């Protein structure tokens, strides 16, 4: 060999550096935004000055998308501002969004991976006290990806996972208990949340897809 590299060059050529996966990056950004929204105002000043702050929605592509959606005339009027939610509903929707984001981490989305409802539905038997309706809605644009068990807001939930044009929809189902909020739609940290109850089961759909997409999903799922 004509020229020997020094140790640093030899190591940089031989050893890889790694990049955090996109889902880990997305999850971390979500955690950062939670901190920014919930805690920063109470914190002591940091050593370097904050740059001038712009309204949150302008920083947030998803929220901006919702604004555009509202301006386009759909979705307007159904998004309820967080201030109008009761605190318990607020806590529930926040936990649902947490569960949704957590599910997108590598290896967390599916316990049973199947597009076959005859595989997914029996999988829940014996693991939960409910038998959620499992239908593949691929013909309506919402292919069934699978399911998993989750724990949200004190409930063991059956989570059904559907796809929608590159988005993931988590449908959390648990037995309706006293004091459940009424049907409604919510926007939580840029995620859409849609809630409905029927047949003794309460259902929450969560996604980063537009609320109108979730409503189309609900209509397809319920019928």
């Amino acid at each position, binding site marked *: 060999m004509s020229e020997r590299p020094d*140790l640093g060059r030899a190591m940089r050529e031989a050893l890889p550096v790694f*990049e955090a996966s996109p889902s880990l990056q997305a999850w971390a950004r979500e955690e950062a935004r939670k901190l920014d929204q919930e805690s920063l105002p109470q914190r002591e000043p940091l050593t370097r000055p904050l740059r001038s702050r712009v309204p949150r929605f302008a920083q947030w592509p998803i929220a901006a998308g919702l604004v555009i959606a509202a301006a386009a005339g759909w979705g307007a009027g159904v998004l309820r501002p967080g201030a109008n939610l009761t605190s318990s509903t607020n806590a529930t929707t926040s936990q649902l969004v947490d569960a949704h984001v957590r599910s997108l981490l*590598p290896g967390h989305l599916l316990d049973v991976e199947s597009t076959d409802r005859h595989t997914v539905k029996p999988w829940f038997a014996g693991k939960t006290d409910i038998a959620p309706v499992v239908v593949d809605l691929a013909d309506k644009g919402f292919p069934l990806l699978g399911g998993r068990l989750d724990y949200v807001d004190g409930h063991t939930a059956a989570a059904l996972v559907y796809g929608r044009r590159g988005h993931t929809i988590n449908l959390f189902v648990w037995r309706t208990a006293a004091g459940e909020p009424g049907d409604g739609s919510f926007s939580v940290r840029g995620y859409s949340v849609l809630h409905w109850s029927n047949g003794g089961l309460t259902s929450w759909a969560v996604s980063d897809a537009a609320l109108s997409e979730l409503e189309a999903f609900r209509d397809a799922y319920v019928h």
Partner: protein
Amino acid sequence: MRLVSHADKSVEVGRAEGPQVGQFERVVLPHLSAGFTLAMYLTGNKADAEDAVQEAILRAVRYFSTLRDDDARAWFLTIVRRVCFTAYRTDRPQGTDMISIDAVGPQLVDSREQPDMAAERLQVQQRVRAAVDQLPPLLREAIVLRELQSFSYAEVAAVTEVPIGTVMSRLSRARARLADLLHDVVDFGDVA
């Protein structure tokens, strides 16, 4: 997970978000991949490394207000390292906690090189990996932080939570061990 060459190292997380996003996102998240790389070298596998970084982010969020100085990278990697040591490594036998070199593709071989030159460089790269692999964990993390991630001695000391003198001693021992194995292909200057 994507492997990135060092030429791409400047492509870091969060750059596309612009400067106006929150403080934590701006200060800490650019070091996510550096933290993940350290976790990969400490835990030896992607699943544990991702779990460790996830836990580190949760802790970093919780303790963000304690970050006082400017070196967010060293601060965040200190947390990553603590998580790796407490949760993902102490229960493992020594020597099983390194990435298998088979899992790592050939790096940075210039396709314009003559085939025999390329083969020779691949062989050198494999020898370097194997040599780093057999280092004891404390020496390995020091040399990886210093030579692979280009940390200053002070930063290595901060991340590994030991005095600078200890860092220099560890680096010196690591270099001596590597020199024993690699002196014919790597220039160690005075050490060899």
